[in-house]
């Protein structure tokens, strides 16, 4: 077993990253895959959603220095095969902690390496930013799952990421390892603006834009109350169905093409 690492990422906050990470990880585990979510956001939203205490023994610094026994920090969620590496407030200094190393961008990949053998999927739930942490996430991930709110400025964010994914890393046409897979999030289908942005972006980015969109729904908001993935407490809801469709699409797109 060598886990596929998927990071839910966006420069912007409040776009549905954590909801996507939590729900997709839940679906991966439900499908029978050993799955881990690493909550990299100091706010600890996914940690909270799984009712786990935000506590990282030794803090982020020890973790990225590889001095913590990462296996002992992982907590089982209430769902079979789904574990979580919790966040705590020490992650707010993660940029500084990474910067203490010679090649900081490779650091998160090093932390993940020993866990790859234990899981089929590792989801990184990232804090909104473009920083050293983001760089390190890009190095570690096989794919970025990017939630996009179908608004006018969103396409700009997405294009920046695509540029990053396609950049020449060694001056000889080599590309960074991750793929960008974007999906629409918090979609209000009744809004003409959303519909037109979606149509335009799907046409322009049909290779990387996933088909399924996550609706802006009360069920997703309800996760904060239920402290569970939508699929667990409202499996027949439109939001749960949308995450199912998204997960199917992600698996299909990832196919057998893996990071070497």
């Amino acid at each position, binding site marked *: 077993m060598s886990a596929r690492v998927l990071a839910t990422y966006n420069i912007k906050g409040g776009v549905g990253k954590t909801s996507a990470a939590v729900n997709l990880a839940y679906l991966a585990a439900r499908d029978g895959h050993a799955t881990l979510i690493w909550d990299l956001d100091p706010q600890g939203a996914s940690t909270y959603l799984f*009712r*786990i205490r935000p506590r990282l023994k030794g803090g982020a610094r020890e973790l990225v220095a590889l001095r913590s026994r990462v296996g002992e*920090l992982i*907590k*089982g*969620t209430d769902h079979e095969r789904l574990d979580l590496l919790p966040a705590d407030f020490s992650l707010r200094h993660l940029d500084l902690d990474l910067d203490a190393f010679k090649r900081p961008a490779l650091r998160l990949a090093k932390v993940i390496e020993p866990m790859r053998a*234990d899981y089929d999927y590792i989801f990184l739930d990232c804090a909104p930013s473009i920083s050293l942490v983001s760089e390190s996430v890009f190095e570690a991930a096989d794919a970025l799952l990017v939630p996009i709110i179908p608004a006018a400025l969103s396409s700009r964010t997405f294009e920046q990421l695509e540029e990053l994914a396609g950049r020449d890393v060694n001056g000889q046409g080599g590309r960074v390892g991750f793929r960008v897979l974007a999906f629409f999030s918090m979609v209000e289908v009744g809004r003409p603006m959303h519909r037109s942005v979606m149509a335009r972006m799907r046409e322009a980015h049909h290779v990387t834009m996933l088909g399924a969109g996550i609706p802006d729904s009360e069920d997703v908001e309800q996760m904060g109350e239920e402290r569970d993935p939508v699929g667990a407490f409202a499996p027949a809801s439109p939001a749960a169905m949308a995450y199912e469709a998204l997960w199917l699409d992600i698996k299909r797109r990832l196919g057998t093409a893996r990071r070497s």
Partner: protein
Amino acid sequence: MTPEPIELIASQPATLDSIDRALDGTFTAERLDSSESDHVLLDTFDRLVRGEGWTLAHEHGRLALSDRRMISAVAAGPPCEAPAGPMFGRDLPAGELGNRVARAIELRALLPLGRLHVRTESYRILDDLQKTVVRVNVLVPELVSCGGSATPLSTRLRIQVVRGYGEERDEVIAALSPALGLAGADQPLPDEAILASGERPEGVSTKVAVPLDADQPSVLAVSRVLRALLDVIDANLAGTLADTDSEFLHDYRVSIRRTRAVQRQFKHVFDPDELRVARGEFKWLQQSTSDARDLDVYVLGFDAMRDLIPRETRPDLAPLLTALRRRRTVAHGAMGRALRSDRARETMSRWREMLDVLDDGPDSDRPYGRRPIGGYSSRRIRKVYRRMLEMGGAIRVGGDESPPQEFHELRKKGKELRYLLELFGQPTADASVVKPMIKTLKSLQDVLGHHQDREVQIDMLRSLADEVAVLPGGPRALMAMGVLTAQLEKDAAKTRRKFSQVFEEFAGKDQRKLVKDTFA
């Protein structure tokens, strides 16, 4: 990644109320679901599946292989009916479960050992964040008899920690222990069920290992060993008569042969007149089962024997198999009549009485009985070994070859030595010495056994010629049997040539010194 659940026995009822009360607000219990399941436990008479560390059961409409505690699944088969009777390797479904179990049981039959009915109540234990930290399954098992009556077994709690919550699990166990009267489960559930059904969880094996003390009076040591052998004889009788699988008869005969070897080697501990009668009767028991066993071996080994001749003529041997099966049926009938007879019953009952007398301790009439078993058995081992050296040394291979009977006699003596080493070697010699000795002896015995098999097969083919000739396809079968006989003779000759080499090792200077030093 997930550790195995901890299994505990509860002496008090484990319900949502009792669990919740015991947790006293530090944690709360929530009932998840309840289920009922039936499990027909299956294993061979000598528990070969259990010996692999597994439990095999028919449950939820399929065969399932799990660990000994019935906690972790190893493999599952496709949907199938519960076996109504003995089930052999060839009857198992194709796939991982079938392959694993068939390899483990070889020739033996899987027997239904008992039916378990289990009610499982599942709970989760939550911390103050309402997060699940521990899962608890309460198993309330019963052993259900054929008539449908149920015998309650111990209530078991299987406590599964959620990863990262080990401390909470320990706290939960500490809270539940006094209230529910928890104790470690020292016996897996299937073992408890089999014991409750009146059977031995470990089954019956021919491997008799009676711990002996070198200074123990030989009469008592001999009696203990013979009684253990008698248990095996008794235990295998029903399966032998029912022809459940071929190994019942095999194990029955091995124990009779071992008994006879002990009778012969330690004759001075017995009353000579009584022993003479007993030896005669045990010889009769052995002879009464010989044909049935030989024919079992022929039928079981038919395919391998048939493969000695060219492929195109192999189908011609079909009438031979028909004749063998007919003879086998007749031989088993005759054996059944003998073993069910008054004579057989009286033999065993007199034998039991003789062992009771031995149990009373040394008798002034039989001073040998007082001698420590260590010295007595060592002398016997040395003597039988020396006798084998003489017999083997006199065997000629090549030009003026010894008759097959001499190889056979040496093999019989070799079995006696093996039984002595296995049953009585331990008080004098360490297992690290005895085991390699038995290994060297086994190499010799394998060659002699293979040779004997071939000789007997040749005799069998000759004796069956008339019978096969009148069957449909008989003439072609006779021609194929001629080719087979020639192959068997060639193979027997080849085996005889191997004899010198293995005997040399057995009779070598090192081995002689080892026997002399160990059994001084």
